[in-house]
């Protein structure tokens, strides 16, 4: 290994000209010309259109379907119900790990939530399929559903993806009892639905025992395994193409009912089937962020130092499966505190099972916890930033481990400077704009763990000197195709133009799930090490061959750059990859690599990305309408592969934070359990005019421990901190503390 010094990772690692460059998106031209092919854009010959029939009750059973009426509609080919649904190789209700979600898949006539698919109508045209679904006119036996958090409470075994439900350090009760000041408050967060702009879609076609799928997925390998299990197919006989996802945000990680039903419809009809969800169907069977009620108690001493906190989350899960929003965990790593207790309880309600939605746990937990911190700062008579600096954690509070890196102080400083935070009055309702509207400034600390999954990649250098990198990764808008290709080019010592980057299909090495803000770190490290493996072989070929100008350079090492190996101690001496392979008479040379967390580093260090978000909100003092005037976020997340993409991830995350604070909320009718605003007209997400001045500052941070490339994730952290910064700004503007999100204008009418 010593010959290839440039592959030794670490702070002194010499990167080529690609990593760190703000390249525009490699698929940009395709996306602006309509040439990027999303799943629903495929039209294999003989295609049929399928639609699901969503249940309009939340609990009970289907007693009749007018299949004859639906089938009589011109163009309707088939109606799939529990009567004729093809058999599956396994019970879709079986669950062997927390990433596997239970599905009914027309197993029986039970209805477990409003929107659950109870039939599938397949037709020659989309128009016929949709009308067929209406003509089915289901009748039900309905039971009264529960859709609130007021039902029977139980203690979950685990929260999120199998995390402990409870954690304790020190004697919280005693510390709270003896605190000079205490803050106790309860916050509520609503059900939210991912609503990627691209609805879930599948185009499925069987060819004997082979299955071809066009389907957006954040987890090619995981989806393939799930489908293989359900349908009794060999994984290698399933080919999934997911070259572009029209957004995922966690909802396209696991296979959900509609995709599986689309495949079943193809099986039943023996023809290719396209099934695309309607927008209203995105509020049911494809996961959501479950509602929470969080009670937070904070204790302070006379100086404003935190002495203890207790964070209890009550979260909703479904009647038939378990996913408890792990919201209480967020405080475990935020502030120096000698005693803490975090715990969860859950209530079963009649909705689809909650799941991972952008920053699961952190988003809901952060808006509550960082609001409570703001309340504590005010109780202590301190500026919210000064309060956070006073309670700055130099080691992870829950574990006392050092952080692998933590440039949060720099985030605070750079963000506060850019925002102009120093002029903030302590008391609320002190600032006005030129028209007399109330202005408020608020802040929040952002945090997200720096996780790693496992991923693989395969690299090739071809005889013409060009390279190929294969990694079954996923681009749902993060910029993976660009950033991963930048890493690949540097790993192979090639200019971007000489690299063919292959990704987005299931026949490539599994580069890991795009979730948990891990993808660049996991796939990136796999790619880099695959590149290293190839370069190592190429180097061995060169330095061991006396015909090579690099012969004997082994001990001093060579550098791979611009398609050449060159001597590290004399950059004038080198040889092109093409020449090396030509002489060796090899068509290509390949290598593979893996990216994964280092257990010993993870044992030794606490690993997180951090940030600080500052918000200015204007509130009409009479009418309560709010507008966010400015948002400044400063984030430190290790090495930045592509600052343009990273900035966009932060800005997008911050808009999600704004949405959490002021907009998003699914509204259930308590009697029927149906969501009454299952559309983009009334389930509000921010529009362009909701945003004005927005800035994301990329704070430099060097992390020698987190992984060889020093990458932390950037996809989710932007939501954290932002929601509370806005909520705190609303309080600072009005003096009204709203603890039920989203904050609505009716809350501010006084």
């Amino acid at each position: 290994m010593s010959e290839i010094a440039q592959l030794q990772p670490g702070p002194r690692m010499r990167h080529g000209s690609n990593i760190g460059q703000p390249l525009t998106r490699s698929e940009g031209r395709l996306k602006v010309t309509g040439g990027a092919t999303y799943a629903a854009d495929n039209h294999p010959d003989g295609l049929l259109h399928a639609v699901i029939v969503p249940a309009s009750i939340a609990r009970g059973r289907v007693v009749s379907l007018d299949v004859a009426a639906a089938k009589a509609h011109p163009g309707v080919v088939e109606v799939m119900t529990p009567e004729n649904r093809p058999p599956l190789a396994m019970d879709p209700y079986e669950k062997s790990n927390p990433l596997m979600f239970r599905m009914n898949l027309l197993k029986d006539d039970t209805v477990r939530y409003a929107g659950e698919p109870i039939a599938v109508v397949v037709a020659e045209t989309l128009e016929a399929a949709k009308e067929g679904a209406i003509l089915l006119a289901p009748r039900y036996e309905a039971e009264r559903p529960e859709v609130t958090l007021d039902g029977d409470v139980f203690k979950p075994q685990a929260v999120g993806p199998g995390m402990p439900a409870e954690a304790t350090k020190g004697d919280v009760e005693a510390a709270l009892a003896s605190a000079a000041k205490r803050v106790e408050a309860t916050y509520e967060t609503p059900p939210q639905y991912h609503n990627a702009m691209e609805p879930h879609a599948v185009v499925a076609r069987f060819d004997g025992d082979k299955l071809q799928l066009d389907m957006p997925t954040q987890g090619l390998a995981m989806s393939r395994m799930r489908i293989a299990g359900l349908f009794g197919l060999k994984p290698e006989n399933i080919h999934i193409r997911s070259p572009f996802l029209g957004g995922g945000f966690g909802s396209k990680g696991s296979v959900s009912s509609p995709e599986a039903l689309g495949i079943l419809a193809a099986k039943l009809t023996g023809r290719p089937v396209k099934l695309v969800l309607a927008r209203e169907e995105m509020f049911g069977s494809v996961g959501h962020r479950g509602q929470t009620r969080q009670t937070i108690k904070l204790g302070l001493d006379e100086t404003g130092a935190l002495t203890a906190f207790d964070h209890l989350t009550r979260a909703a899960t479904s009647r038939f499966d378990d996913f408890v929003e792990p919201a209480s965990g967020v405080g475990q790593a935020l502030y120096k505190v000698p005693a803490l207790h975090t715990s969860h309880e859950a209530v079963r309600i009649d909705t689809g099972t909650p799941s991972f939605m952008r920053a699961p746990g952190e988003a809901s937990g952060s808006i509550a916890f960082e609001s409570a911190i703001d309340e504590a700062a005010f109780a202590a008579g301190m500026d919210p930033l000064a309060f956070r600096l006073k309670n700055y954690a130099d080691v992870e509070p829950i574990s006392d481990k050092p952080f692998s890196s933590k440039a949060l102080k720099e985030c605070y400083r750079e963000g506060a400077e850019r925002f102009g935070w120093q002029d903030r009055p302590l008391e609320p309702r002190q600032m006005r704009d030129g028209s007399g509207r109330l202005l408020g400034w608020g802040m929040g600390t952002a945090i997200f763990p720096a996780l790693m999954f496992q991923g693989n990649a395969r690299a090739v250098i071809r005889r013409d000197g060009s390279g190929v990198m294969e990694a079954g990764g996923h681009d749902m808008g993060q910029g993976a195709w660009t950033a991963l290709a930048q890493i690949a080019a540097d790993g192979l010592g090639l200019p971007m133009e000489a690299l063919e980057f292959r990704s987005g299909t299931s026949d490539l090495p599994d580069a890991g799930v795009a979730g948990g803000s891990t993808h660049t770190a996991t796939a990136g490290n796999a790619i880099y090490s695959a590149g290293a493996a190839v370069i190592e072989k190429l180097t061995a070929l060169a330095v061991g061959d006396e015909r090579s100008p690099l012969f004997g350079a082994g001990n001093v090492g060579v550098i791979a750059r611009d398609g050449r190996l060159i001597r590290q101690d004399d950059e004038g001496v080198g040889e092109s990859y093409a020449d090396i392979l030509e002489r060796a008479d090899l068509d290509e040379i390949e290598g593979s690599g893996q990216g994964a967390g280092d257990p010993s580093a993870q044992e030794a260090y606490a690993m997180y990305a951090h940030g600080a978000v500052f918000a200015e909100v204007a509130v009409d003092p009479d009418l309560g309408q709010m507008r966010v005037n400015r948002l400044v976020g400063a984030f430190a997340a290790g090495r930045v592969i592509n600052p343009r993409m990273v900035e966009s991830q932060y800005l997008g995350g911050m808009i999600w934070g704004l949405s959490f604070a002021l907009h998003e909320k699914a509204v259930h009718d308590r009697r029927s359990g149906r969501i009454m605003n299952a559309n983009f007209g009334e389930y509000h997400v921010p529009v362009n005019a909701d945003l004005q001045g927005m800035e994301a500052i990329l704070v430099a941070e060097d992390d020698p421990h987190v992984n060889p490339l020093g990458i932390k994730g950037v996809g989710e952290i932007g939501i954290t901190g932002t929601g509370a910064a806005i909520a705190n700004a609303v309080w600072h503007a009005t003096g009204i503390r709203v603890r039920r999100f989203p904050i609505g204008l009716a809350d501010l009418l006084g």
Partner: protein
Amino acid sequence: MNRFDYIRPKNVAEAVAAASEPGSAYLAAGTNLLDLMKGGVSRPERLVDVTHLPGLDRIETLADGAMRIGALVKNSELAYDEAFSARFPAVAEALLSGASAQLRNAATVGGNLLQRTRCAYFYDTASACNKRAPGSGCDAIGGENHGHAVLGWSEHCIATHPSDFCVPLTALGAIVKIEGKDGRRDVPITDFYLLPGDTPDRENVLSPGEMIVGVRLPAEAAGFAANQRYLKVRERTSYAFAVVSAAAALRIEDGTIAEARLALGGVAARPWRAIEAEAALAGAPASRASFEKAAEAAFADARPSGDNAYKIALGKRIVTRALAMAASGTPEVMPALPASPFAPLSEGVIHV
């Protein structure tokens, strides 16, 4: 969406004849009707496409200064018509605060007048709704009714009319021009819409087959051009229906209100003309005290239909604000955020 017969008549008479058949519906741009048909809320057996009818796409200034607007004029076309927006700036402002640029480019004047409520229970075909299925009941009562009516509702229906455009039209006394089997008639917009009573499915005075062919704004309505505004409070900055809105128009002579016009949106099954408030303002000084008194008068009969008492308090404040904004003068240029509380405000309009 059900299959339907598609008919493209050549003139209004043919259209009226075709649409007089039971089960017919007029299709203009379809921005509301297709939405309803896709949801199964509306299932007409035949669509009478009026989009190609001649003569209904004109904006005309009549000899007396009144303006006549054809039913097929697009919302955006009207809003950006200079002659129109100079005379009726609050109408233009209301149009530009509604929906999105794309929808405004498609949606017609006639269609806007006939748009259906956004009540979620009307849209949700599994819910009881007397408007959609007469006699089935009203699930909005006792349900999620944060946005429902506070004026003019009945125990059979608490839905609101969602239009922005119709609110200043109502304030300014627009006339709806109608053609049917029995000829033409003009109906003041204040008489055009029906309150729900015990027949919430009957939303307006149109008889089967009758179509709106245009809207006339009388000449005297242009007398308010110098002092009129539309103000719309909503849950996001743009592309949202009104929580509550108000159109206020004043004729001010020497600091005294000679005549006032006021209408409210988002509060009732029809755009709500606040006659008592107008009376309270006539002859009063253009002052905050007068505006607040008018606001009280406007909501004197209001009562919550559910979880929406806040709309009464909010509505009063919107009226006060809209009147203050109108009194401070119509802006010279259309604000970048039309009708928004975040559009520029004259000094002193915000009081608290």
